[in-house]
């Protein structure tokens, strides 16, 4: 159904061209641990294309000699003195977890199938 996606047809996608393909959206969703339905994939692909087209406006700027800026205020290596201070109460924290056991967060198996 590439036709319905119009400008986001899959071929020859270049960075900052304002295009992202349906397959790329599916890949990005899996990287971000999101599952999308077929309809959602269509909708999100169109919407992300529009945003990325706007981002392509930046291509008109000459930025070769400009340094990137990561944050507004130049603080670096913020350290505190090495003193023991109270931390959050463990039971209070674990009481808010979906599942906890023996003072720890409990999760399904990290590898393979559940027994």
């Amino acid at each position, binding site marked *: 159904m590439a036709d319905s996606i119009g400008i986001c047809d899959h071929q020859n996608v270049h960075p900052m061209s304002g295009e992202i393909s349906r397959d*790329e959206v599916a890949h990005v969703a899996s990287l971000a641990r999101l599952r*999308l339905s077929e309809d959602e994939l269509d909708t999100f692909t169109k919407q992300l294309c529009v945003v990325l087209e*706007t981002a392509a406006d930046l291509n008109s700027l000459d930025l070769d000699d400009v340094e990137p800026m990561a*944050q507004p*205020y130049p603080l670096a290596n913020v350290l505190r003195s090495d003193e023991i201070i109270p931390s*959050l109460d463990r039971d209070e*924290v674990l009481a*808010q977890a979906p599942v906890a056991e023996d003072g720890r967060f409990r999760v399904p198996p990290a590898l393979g199938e559940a027994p």
Partner: protein
Amino acid sequence: MNTATELAAHVRSGDQSASVALAEALGSIADSDHDINAFLHLTRDRAEQQALAIDQAVAAGTDPGPLAGVPIAIKDNMCTRGEPTTCSSKILEGWRPPYDATVISRLEAAGAIIVGKTNLDEFAMGSSTENSAFGATRNPHDLSRVPGGSSGGSAAAVAAGYVPLSLGSDTGGSIRQPAALCGVVGVKPTYGAVSRYGLIAFASSLDQIGPFATNVTDAALCYDVIAGHDPLDATSIPIEQASTLATLGDGVAGMRIGIIDELCGEGIDADVIARTHEAADALRAAGATVETVSIPATIYGLAAYYLIAPAEASSNLARFDGVRYGQRVDGVNVAAMNVATRSAGFGDEVKRRIMLGTYALSSGYYDAYYGKAQKVRSLISDEFATAYKSFDLLLSPTSPSTAFKIGAKSDPMALYMCDVCTIPSNLAGHPALSVPFGAGDDGLPIGVQVLAPMLDEAKMFRAAKVLEDAAGGQS
């Protein structure tokens, strides 16, 4: 309703009971919030205990602080110990944080009473407060219209007269734009001026907490309480600012103020531009010189922001994985549980931004998107620095239009355009506020934006006070 300043004075002098003031606030919320939906949750027990403690302190001759007995509403992305904190997301439904945000501790230490948690666009991503898992908030001036966003619940709570003060967070305009649309004052402080410990992160290099108030004096009073260094926030600036309240009445005589040309043209409604020029006239009448200034890079702010903010969000929101807090949807293994939890728990706008950010940061695209956006950020910051060599403050509209109808902007990009005037300050890290200045052709409130250099909140509040007095004199 009393202003926060008046109410605190009456409570401190013993003329008014904090418990009675709280009961009145809770009563007005119960009467009309089913229509407006500003609040997600009331912190009634905590508030009643705090009010009682304040009344007892006054009776014992102790000063409870500059916000004694003042009810305040808190955007629901700031942690309140033992009270729900949802970010208007299903993924955090039922979670009760094990600690208070620093702003909460500071407010209570100053005598304020936390009455409840307000609605927002999910994880503060939006400009209309329609995008909440718990329903839209409506504008108290016209219930068919949005309050703006993402801090729409906090703006509406003040505009509706429930409380004289509230807190919001502003990543691309999420305090200033709803303040403009609801006809109240909204302040985005300097990046690092107010601690973000306990603010659930959206875009860490942009997020800032700030106050909403019905008037500039109350906003300055609240700002002075919440500002200041906090060792629990590594981005908190380690200096103490002078009181902004102390110099609030000093006026603008002799100040040089620039109107940002690029933010007063295409895409901005004519009535909004007209009020901005009238605000300039009011500043001139008070003794400032006002000239037009060009800051060309501001027009690229929107494009840069919608790469940087989603990139940071995609990283920050990775923590919502069903392990440590909030909702979990089970799966056969950890990865399946993560996917099931996040797919069910996040709304569409949050998913859109996570994917956009993941893409902008991914291998092969990083330099072209995120890297380029960071360079544009430098450009904007440099152009602001140049402008501030010639000007003390800058002036612009806050929002391109007055409040729009609920459902009118269903296309994501149309909503993103709402932030065009407010985003540049977040990218530069500078303070800016919105102050009501007249009405639009539709009779709805218009706000004008005052922008200041880093840590120059005091001058910003002085200009806002002049504008507030002039706007009051007009009506």
